């Protein structure tokens, strides 16, 4: 059995906010004591104080999380500048936290470190990993590659990378009582856990196809032998800079399948564009676009896929990771994503989630997890 508590508040005072959140969690958890938790917070809160408050209430809780670009929960639906906390308790499921540091220096080593820390505490077969890595200092593709290697096959990785309210300056990750950056916090689920994942975006490629001719990791210097920035200037009519809502579709070799890479920043002097994930040299790329309806359709598809592949009898919780660019494009309709979510997940299931700078999940159930942009990832949880 998986016991789940959710709390959510947008009180501007950090102490008042977390106390409100904890009291909501207590009510929904009743007498069970949680062993682990996920926390997603806006960038402006006093994060240290909040983590301390949680630890006071639940000493040594296996807690991870990160800063965001907006939060959702079954308690307060969609909010900005808020704190959302989901707590897990169970007799037959083990949930343990770990962290890897200095991901920008050596993503593989950081991933190994995180897995080792968490795995040391596990006594059962690990099945699922939730990760909330740094997004701005390092390539999430390399982090995920390290994580996949360190966990070995048979473990699904799901999650979202930390955000900073579309400022792209500094994001924070949380591990127990620590406020970190350049880190990789993870939560490993072992034992009797049942889960399924759904992923969908709503973006479609438009315009001409081009080839990436000069690239280093996630920094693209040239497309069709011209500065990468020109590629965006061409579409935006000369003045405007690349933006997260206009990712590139990167086509897998000789197929019509593609994954999305959103631009995070650019360098006007060298004409390069930095993306939220690596792009291979000579990859065929195309600019993409989405409208509000197609974005919301993506939510439905994502949930539908998660429900279709779920093997359990009931859902105990849902955790969602939605791209910050989706929120930006949805504008005043951002709250509708949660409404679609609520409408499509049957029953009174506790839900939490946040707006990320990059999403993690497998495209097909049982396949290796990949790093995505502009997607909506649904994770359904329960026990066997």
């Amino acid at each position: 059995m998986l016991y789940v508590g959710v709390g959510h508040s947008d009180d501007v005072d950090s102490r008042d906010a977390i106390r409100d959140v904890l009291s909501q969690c207590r009510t929904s958890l009743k007498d069970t004591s949680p062993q682990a938790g996920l926390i997603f917070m806006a960038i402006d809160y006093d994060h240290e104080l909040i983590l301390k408050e949680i630890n006071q209430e639940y000493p040594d809780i296996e807690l991870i999380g990160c800063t965001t670009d907006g939060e959702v929960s079954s308690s307060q639906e969609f909010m900005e500048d808020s704190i959302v906390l989901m707590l897990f308790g169970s007799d037959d499921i083990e949930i343990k936290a770990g962290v890897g540091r200095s991901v920008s220096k050596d993503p593989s080593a950081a991933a190994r470190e995180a897995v080792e820390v968490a795995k040391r505490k596990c006594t059962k077969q690990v099945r699922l990993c939730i990760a909330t890595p740094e997004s701005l200092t390092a390539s999430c593709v390399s982090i995920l590659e390290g994580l996949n290697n360190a966990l070995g096959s048979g473990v699904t990785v799901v999650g979202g990378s930390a955000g900073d309210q579309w400022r792209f300056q500094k994001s924070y990750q949380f591990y127990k009582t620590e406020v970190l950056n350049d880190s990789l916090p993870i939560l490993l689920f072992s034992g009797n856990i049942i889960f399924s994942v759904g992923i969908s975006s709503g973006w479609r490629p438009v315009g001409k196809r081009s080839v990436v001719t000069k690239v280093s990791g996630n920094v693209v210097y040239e497309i069709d032998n011209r500065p990468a920035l020109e590629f965006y200037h061409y579409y935006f009519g000369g003045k405007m800079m690349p933006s997260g809502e206009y990712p590139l579709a990167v086509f897998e070799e000789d197929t019509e399948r593609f994954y999305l890479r959103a631009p995070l920043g650019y360098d006007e002097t060298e004409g390069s564009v930095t993306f939220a994930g690596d792009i291979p040299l000579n990859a065929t790329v195309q600019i993409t676009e989405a409208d509000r309806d197609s974005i919301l359709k993506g939510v439905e598809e994502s949930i539908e896929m998660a429900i279709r592949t779920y093997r359990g009898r009931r859902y105990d919780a849902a955790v969602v990771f939605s791209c910050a660019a989706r929120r930006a494009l949805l504008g005043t309709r951002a709250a509708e994503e949660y409404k679609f979510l609520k409408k499509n997940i049957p029953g009174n299931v506790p839900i939490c989630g946040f707006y990320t700078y990059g999403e993690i999940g497998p495209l097909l159930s049982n396949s290796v997890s990949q790093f995505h942009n502009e997607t909506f990832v649904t994770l359904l949880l329960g026990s066997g």
Partner: protein
Amino acid sequence: MSLQEELQQKIRLLEKENKRLRKKLERSERNRVLLEESNERHKAMLRTINMELKATNEKLKQVDEMKTNFLSMVSHELRTPLTSILGFTQIIKKRFEQIILPNTDLSDKKSQKAAWQIRQNLEVIIKESRRLSELINDVLDIAKIESGRMEWKEEDTDIKAVFERAIAATEALLQEKGLYLRREYGDDSFIIRGDPDRLIQVVTNLLSNAIKFTDSGGIVCRISKEGDVIRCEVEDTGCGIPEDMLEKVFEKFKQVGDTLTERPKGTGLGLPICREIIKHHRGRIWAKSELGKGSRFIFELPAATMVAKKTIKRDILHRIQEHIRENEGGKILIVDDDPFIRGMVRQFLEDKGYTIEEAEDAKEAIGKTRSSKPDLIILDIMMPGLSGYDVLRVLKNDELTSDIPVLVLSVLENKQKALMLGASEYITKPFDEKDLYERIQKILSHHGQKERIMIIDRDISLMRQLSQFMRSKGYEVIECKPEPEEVKNGLKSAPERVFVDIEAIQILLQNSSLVEALSSTKMVFICKVPEKRDSG
């Protein structure tokens, strides 16, 4: 709690709320800017994409034009040598049959076998060349339709006439296989707006497919009207189509059967062209079948809803012209003791739309002439027993047969004798097909001059156009307004056919004496579709 404490708490709460609201305001302002920027990008991007699309479109147009030009060039290049292959093979076949074969000693088994093989081989070359030329035509057709370059006629078309034309075109094939053909449609017209020639192409294709795949039994043609939809069917008792092929037969180059082991029987483009044509007419076409029992091809077209008066006139004229043309093909009796010659002339003339009968000697020739009254006799002179001259003497001395024109086709150069005996034309073997056809036409049109027709219509201008056309065709025309006295007078000159406007006949039918007089004539109705308001 003291009042002051309470007040301080209230102030703290208000300050917090103030801060929260300010934050929300800030945030929503940031979101607004974000969204505005995003909208700007979106607009700019749409402009660029639009530009790209236009450029792509332009390029596609050029490519399409190149494709079309290439296709017509290639097909021309293919057709030229193909014409030579087909033409010379026909000549070789003819020479072989007319010159080599009669002088070959066929009692020798080896020669007999070789002769038979040569004929078979020549047949194959001719058949395959024809198929190749059909294929070129079909490829051109489909390329034209797909690129939107097909020029479509848009006129009121009677589906029944379309069926009749298609049936006439495939009748020879039908007879060859000994299949029956049943028409299950009444006398009503089924009018749609569209291109009659293309629709004839559809029905001809369905019919020849049905004949091709049916070895016994026959074919049923059905037309019915359900609401605003005209439904047409061609049903056969042939081998049928497997369920998984019912849709595929409408795909390009997909034929039922194993193309590795079976020789293809068509171009594989017939049905795809049919589907394109029907689609153009805002209709649909599909197939039903039961293996071993037969197939049914069904197409539905929207019935015509609005007809402009002007087009009625044009269409009627057109349809009457068609009617007359159809009747131009007459019945011809071929008299020759050589089955090869009979077969060849039959094949050639049937292609031209004539109905053919054959007789192998003088006796049969005289009998068949008396019983079936052909419009023309093609007569050989040198026959065992009674000669062609004898036949000519008998026929020209018999009142019943004396007016039937005779064309003598002989190896003998004795034109004077034949003409003196009453023959209309004399051609020596080996003959030129084109020459034969021209002379037959000349005889028959000369012969047709005698026909007198009458036109009854209130619409004077239409009547004038029609009679002008008929006169140009050599008919004698009586024009009549639909007034009993005038019609009675006209009928006195005994017209062989009466073309009467369907509205006019209603007036005339009220006069009982006229009904009797009219019922003894061959009537052709001119049907004008009533004008309706367009529901759209």
